[in-house]
């Protein structure tokens, strides 16, 4: 399959308009169609926190090679309102095309100095003729965009039809809308000159980090998800709620994040793999419960999707400002794992593994993500379920002795045998007070120290488990002139920057820190020569962790803290600036 673009091997489509115009949905559908045609895609949504009005845009990139990130540039702009033209025209590539509603009557010759073509399409009139709702304008526009980039309209129709499965009238109307938009532009015989070759086989799937985490949790046997709505974690709750029957799960919208964490802990105590998810503000409310999970040694998995703070901050934007909070937040000293996936594959496999880690060590595991990662779509190969195994750790189902069952037995490895209430002959205590091996509260000096030591003896085993999960991942040149360091959602733009630097003749590698707590060993060997740290925060929090754990202090950093993710070009430019 071929697709038409302006330059290189990538086509970039921006869909802009007001909240409520179905922008995100349109972008996802177009991406899915392009994936089916064999392209690698990346799509991300930029939106303020409101329901109607304001300016939203979705950027979709499709390419014959893997794409991991947004860029500031567009080849095609679908402008669902006039405002979008003004906001995005300046960042359009020369030779690009603007699809807009004929009714918006744009100024004649707008953008012509940069070779930009306007494609007025009677979006509103076509929808009226078809008798559809106003929101269907975006479907007409998608049809027009397909014609412009040479995408087969049939694939797009198929994808749209699947979304409205069973609603024949709506399917027909949408198919007509696509065809009308397609024909309108195709009839004008414009289009782009360059050809993009897709891969030989269709890509496996097109999904967000949240989708991947939900599937990872499902694969791991998670049966209980309790959460309070908060961007960017809400889609996880929506997923569990809408798949409770298919997945055999219980999903609860709780009265608060405190209740969300406590329910996940309660379900876990009773023997269920459970999870909660939130953002920084909600995680603040959860920290007392996190400490309870630690003291009572109840496994807990929390998805913490970062967005800019402090306080409400930028509710619908992205940040990496809660790293140290995730590592240190909550009172008392206890073992925890903080793991930060950087793409949809890592979201899936690490989410699944999080449940094993939580149960094997009976500790809280925090899956630390950010809005860019969990709300953006990526194409990837279908997840390999044979790579997911379920390990519930030390479980006892019945007790025949010797002696009584001790929930907090002082075992050598610090991990005591876990049982679930309801098991015959076993009574299962859990206690927020410091306790004896049998779970009864104690304040005895000797008993307290013994129990603290027991819990801390897990540390070396947790560390060993983490070291086996590739806690540091390295990409790019083996003998680099410069090393880029980063984590989480910064991985995508950093990987694309590596490609740009290669084109510039600069040998570079990217070192991704995946596990933040316990902090993996061996990072030092990569911190040689010129190193630049990239983070979506103001204080270089990974830099702090690295200095604390290795003594290495970064001389060069690239930090972004305006709520937006890095663009690959920014990373490349910063690296070139450092190299001089």
């Amino acid at each position, binding site marked *: 399959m071929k697709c038409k673009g302006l330059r290189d091997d990538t086509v970039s489509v921006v869909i802009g308009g007001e909240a409520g115009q179905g922008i995100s949905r349109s972008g996802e559908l177009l991406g899915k169609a392009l994936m089916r045609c064999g392209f690698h895609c990346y799509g991300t949504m930029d939106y303020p926190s409101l329901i109607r009005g304001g300016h939203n845009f979705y950027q979709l990139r499709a390419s014959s090679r893997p794409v991991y990130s947004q860029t500031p540039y567009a080849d095609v702009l679908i402008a669902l309102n006039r405002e979008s033209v003004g906001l995005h025209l300046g960042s359009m590539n020369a030779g690009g095309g603007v699809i807009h509603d004929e009714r918006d009557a744009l100024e004649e010759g707008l953008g012509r100095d940069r070779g930009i073509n306007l494609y007025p399409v009677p979006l509103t009139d076509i929808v009226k003729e078809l008798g559809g709702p106003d929101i269907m304008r975006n479907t007409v526009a998608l049809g027009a965009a397909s014609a412009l980039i040479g995408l087969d309209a049939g694939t797009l129709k198929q994808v749209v039809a699947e979304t409205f499965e069973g609603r024949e009238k709506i399917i027909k109307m949408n198919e007509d809308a696509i065809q009308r938009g397609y024909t309108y532009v195709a009839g004008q015989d414009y289009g782009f000159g360059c050809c993009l070759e897709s891969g030989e086989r269709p890509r*496996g*799937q*097109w999904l967000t980090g949240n*989708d991947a985490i939900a*599937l990872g949790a*499902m694969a*791991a*046997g998670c*049966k*209980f998800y*309790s959460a309070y709505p908060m961007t960017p974690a809400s889609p996880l709750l929506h997923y569990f709620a809408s*798949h*409770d*029957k*298919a*997945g*055999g799960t*219980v999903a*609860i919208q*709780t*009265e*608060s994040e*405190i*209740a*969300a964490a*406590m*329910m*996940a*802990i*309660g*379900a876990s*105590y*009773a*023997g*269920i*793999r*459970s999870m909660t998810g939130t953002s920084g503000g909600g995680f603040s409310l959860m920290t007392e*419960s996190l*400490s*309870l999970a630690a003291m*009572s040694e109840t496994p807990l998995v929390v998805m913490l999707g970062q967005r800019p703070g402090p306080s409400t901050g930028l509710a619908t934007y992205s940040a990496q400002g809660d790293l140290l909070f995730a590592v240190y937040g909550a009172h008392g000293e206890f073992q925890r794992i903080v793991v930060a996936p950087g793409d949809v594959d890592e979201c899936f496999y690490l989410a699944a593994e999080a449940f094993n880690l939580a149960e094997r060590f009976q500790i809280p595991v925090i899956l630390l993500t950010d809005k860019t990662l969990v709300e953006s779509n990526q194409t990837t190969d*279908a*997840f390999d379920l044979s790579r997911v195994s*379920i390990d*519930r750790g030390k479980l006892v189902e019945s007790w025949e002795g010797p002696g009584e069952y001790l929930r907090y037995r002082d075992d050598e490895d610090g991990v005591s045998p876990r049982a*679930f*209430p*309801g*098991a*015959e*002959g*076993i*009574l299962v*205590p*859990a*206690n*927020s007070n410091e306790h004896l091996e049998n*779970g*009864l*509260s104690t304040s005895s000096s000797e008993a307290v120290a013994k129990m603290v030591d027991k819990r801390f003896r897990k540390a070396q085993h947790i560390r060993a488990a983490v070291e086996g999960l590739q806690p540091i991942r390295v990409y790019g040149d083996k003998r680099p002139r410069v090393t880029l360091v980063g984590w989480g959602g910064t991985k995508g733009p950093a990987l694309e920057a590596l490609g740009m630097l290669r084109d510039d003749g600069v040998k570079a590698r990217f070192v991704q820190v995946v596990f933040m707590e316990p902090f993996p060993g061996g990072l030092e060997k990569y911190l040689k020569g010129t190193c630049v740290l990239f983070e979506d925060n103001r204080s270089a929090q990974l830099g702090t962790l690295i200095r604390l754990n290795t003594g290495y202090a970064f001389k060069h950093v690239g930090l972004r803290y305006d709520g937006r993710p890095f663009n690959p070009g920014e990373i490349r430019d910063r690296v070139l600036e450092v190299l001089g």
Partner: protein
Amino acid sequence: MSLTMKDLDTGATNTWCPGCGNFAILMTVKQALIQLGLNPSQVVAVSGIGCHGKTTDYLKVNTFHVIHGRVLPAATAIKLANHGLTVLGFAGDGDAFNIGMGHFPHAARRNVNMAYIVHDNLIYGLTTGQASPTSRQGLVTKTTPRGSAEPGVNPLTQSLTGGATFVARTFAGEAKHMTEVLKRAITHRGFAVVDVLQPCVTFNRVNTYEFYKQRVRKLEEEGHDEGDFEAAYRRAQEWGDVIPIGVFYVEERPTYEDGFPALAGGPLVGQPLSRDLSGLMAEFK
């Protein structure tokens, strides 16, 4: 062999003040469990923070002593995870109606199938004598030296308006009455609130055993229709020369666990972890 009181005793040294109303609650809970023929391994007790919280150290069933005010969300999830278990929530008046108040109407409207036993002594005991949300207006405590200016929370009207389907009050000085009320609460299918008037012999010098003995009147002796919400609400507001005790209101309504399709085939905890993901994964193809 039937269960005895001793079988339900953990052997932990009891540290409640001599004469504390909590002793009567602990004893009658044990009696209720024995009389109902429940197997301790099928019972989970969740307690919060405060003097009442020690209940889980003294009652030999499955136990989870959680953090302050969070009995209800933990107990809700335990019930959903394994609805074959009998779930008992224990809370103090501070635990239930101050820090944990944000959970209370939600557990009530959801009709979580559990009994919620509130050790209501109208004072903070374990933190040595501060005002509680149920302290009556005018009560002198360490934090209200001129007498509490705040009207107290009424646990019964809160329960009724919240949507609890079993609302009762009993008195720690009436052990037999308490046992009967607890038995009904434990076997009630839905969210059962039992507000237990429990004198704090150390810090509350007003609401004493003597105070209650002079005032409590049993609803069942006076004639009361448990299905009449308005009558229940009217009687629930009485607090003066007469303080009614007994079962104020009972309603049959689907419980929280009835609404989850995943629980229709039996307790969640009994279902296998691995599942066929092909259908779920196909959505993204």
